[in-house]
């Protein structure tokens, strides 16, 4: 698969603070690429650099193998759902889509088709003529995503698309994203929700304080940086936790011991991204 986005030693400063610090990685065509990091890690700044809204102080960003962010081809082939709800509240869902579709130069018939299809993808077809200001937070998020995918971009950048939404809308958004991926879209997905990354992403870049801490698939990260499994059990009404890099061996030892009849509620917790993050950065993701 060719690289659809490449960052080479990209840095950005604000007020003499390094917000992005010599970041380098590539995103392959067709994958869902997760950017995982706590609030303030530099994810949104990175998104703004990728889309051409911000210029990098140093380094090179290449899109679609030869374009710079902001080039016409790049802009026409990127869809971006920003963290803020970039919608016109006094327009209906359909009018919003029609407007942004026109801004992406969609022709009249193609536009109408795209609007209908996109509303269906995000499950808002029955709300097409309702004004956005009457929408719930989750519905606005879904429409925000709809605007980003309306012109069928090759690269879709989603910046915290599930922030502040109810579980139902969150699931709907996640399903929509999976569906888009199945259709061949390349997706960059920034979040600080571990479970979303684990569920959706093919590869994950962990970012902390503007630096790339690790990059691999979820399993790869867990295997490399997860270290220990966690075994929990109860014995004589007390709960015990044991960390181990060989859980089978440890369970065997417990079950072979003289106290085995007193052991209950035995469970094994595999290493998580949360643990990976903790191991790599020294602090938790939601600190």
């Amino acid at each position, binding site marked *: 698969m060719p690289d659809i986005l490449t960052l080479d030693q990209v840095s950005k400063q604000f007020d003499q603070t390094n917000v992005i610090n010599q970041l380098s990685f590539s995103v392959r065509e067709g994958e869902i690429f997760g950017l995982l990091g706590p609030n303030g890690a530099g994810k949104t700044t990175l998104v703004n650099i990728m*889309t051409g*809204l911000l210029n990098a102080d140093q380094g090179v960003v290449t899109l679609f193998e030869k374009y710079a962010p902001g080039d016409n081809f790049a*802009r026409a082939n990127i869809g*971006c759902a920003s963290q*803020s*709800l970039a919608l*016109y509240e006094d327009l209906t869902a359909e009018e919003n889509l029609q407007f*942004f579709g026109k801004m992406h*130069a969609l022709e009249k018939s193609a536009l109408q088709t795209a609007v209908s299809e996109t509303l269906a993808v995000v499950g808002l077809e029955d709300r097409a003529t309702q004004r956005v200001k009457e929408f719930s937070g989750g519905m606005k998020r879904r429409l925000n995503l709809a605007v980003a995918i309306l012109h069928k971009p090759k690269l879709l950048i989603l910046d915290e698309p599930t922030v502040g939404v109810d579980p139902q809308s969150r699931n709907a958004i996640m399903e929509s994203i999976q569906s888009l991926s199945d259709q061949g879209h390349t997706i960059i997905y920034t979040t600080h929700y571990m479970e979303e990354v684990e569920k959706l992403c093919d590869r994950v870049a962990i970012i902390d304080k503007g630096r790339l801490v690790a990059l691999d698939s979820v399993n790869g990260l867990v295997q490399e940086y997860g270290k220990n499994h966690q075994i929990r059990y109860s014995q004589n009404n007390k709960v015990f936790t044991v960390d181990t890099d060989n859980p089978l061996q440890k369970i065997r030892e417990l079950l072979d011991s003289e106290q085995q009849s007193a052991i209950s509620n035995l469970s094994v917790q595999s290493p998580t991204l949360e643990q990976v993050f903790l191991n790599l950065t020294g602090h938790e993701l939601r600190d």
Partner: protein
Amino acid sequence: MMASKLLAVTQKDLKLLYRDKGGFFFTFIFPIIMAVFFGSMMSGSGGMKGISLQVVDADQSVISQAFIDKLDAAAELKVVLTDEATARDTVRKGKAAAFLILPKGFGDAKGNLFSGETATVQLGVDPKRSAIKGLLQGVLMSYAAEDMQSAFTDTDKFVDQIDKSLAEVRQARDSGEFADNDKADRMLEFLDQLQEMVDTDSFNNTSSNESADGSTDEDSGFNGFQPLIIETHDISVNRDGPPSGYDVSFPQGILWGILGCLSAFSLSLVSERNQGTLSRLLVSSANRSTILAGKALACFLTIIFIAVCLLLLGKLVFGIQIRQPDLMLLSLVAIGFCFSGLMILFSVISKSEKAAAGITWAAMMLMAMAGGGMIPLAFMPAWMTPVSQFSPVMWSILALEGPMWRQFSLVEMLPVVAVLFGIGIAGFLLGVRLFKWQSSSA
């Protein structure tokens, strides 16, 4: 607990306001500027010599020249001596507040206190500055009355006047010019008594307009000591009647509507920036100039709509006259262009909605004040006249009045619309440049 929370909120809001430079400026600094500005205008510290008066001396006598000299020395007036055609044209174009014509015979009439015609002058005032009409009439009357008073207080002059009048009245009676000889006799008797009073040194200053026997001026048949007759003249030519107040107020009303439109559109770009829709637009296939031009066009169309609606309302309901519709169309396009360009500039330089609102309203107020939209230029200090040339409001009002009642020709309209187009182009280009610079330096 509650008090500490309240104080914390207060402290936070003050911090936010202080850190928002635009908000801080318009909350604290601008009111001071306004106060100083209004203060300097109202106090007259800048000098109230400002009513530009085009004066035509058709009499060319010593008395007319002396009267003009007196007007020229007046603090309220700025006298320019010229010919009648130029005087009328200058006022019609709004470049002078009024004209004054001293007709032939003015000197003779003014030099004759007790017989003959009362001195007459012709005064033409720009209808949009009709507020100064009364002021000018008052000024002219007071100087004419001053002349009369000096004639009474200067004994030699006064004796000469009586002798001259006695001779003229006697001659008129003897030649049968008086229909009623009794009236002529009463007047002669009055003048004789007046002469005696002066001769016996019992003459005191008087401005009584009663004759010795208590009859009124009208009864006695002399000119009633009226210092001056002021005939007011319409400043425009070839028209049925003077413009109504609506012909003057509607262009100003249109301008206020346009300024409101300017404010609303200036805010919209800032709102988009804050909502994130601007970023979304910038990431889309549309470029920055297109986005701004689209906004400018929306503003332009709204301005045209507002102006056309108001003009139609004025015409259909209030009877305002649009004598040159084709030139009015040109004016509206120029005005729309001008304020759309300014809107782009204002919206780009504002960082927050608070700052945008402040900047726009401040600019509107300054433009309206400097352009005569709030206080007639004639009442402003002399230094305001050149300043007003920089106000798009002044040019816009002129552009609207031109095809209405000033009856501008195309040649006369061209400089006005050229200025408006120039302001619009400059505002737009500067706005686009700033917008690109802001984006690239982000």
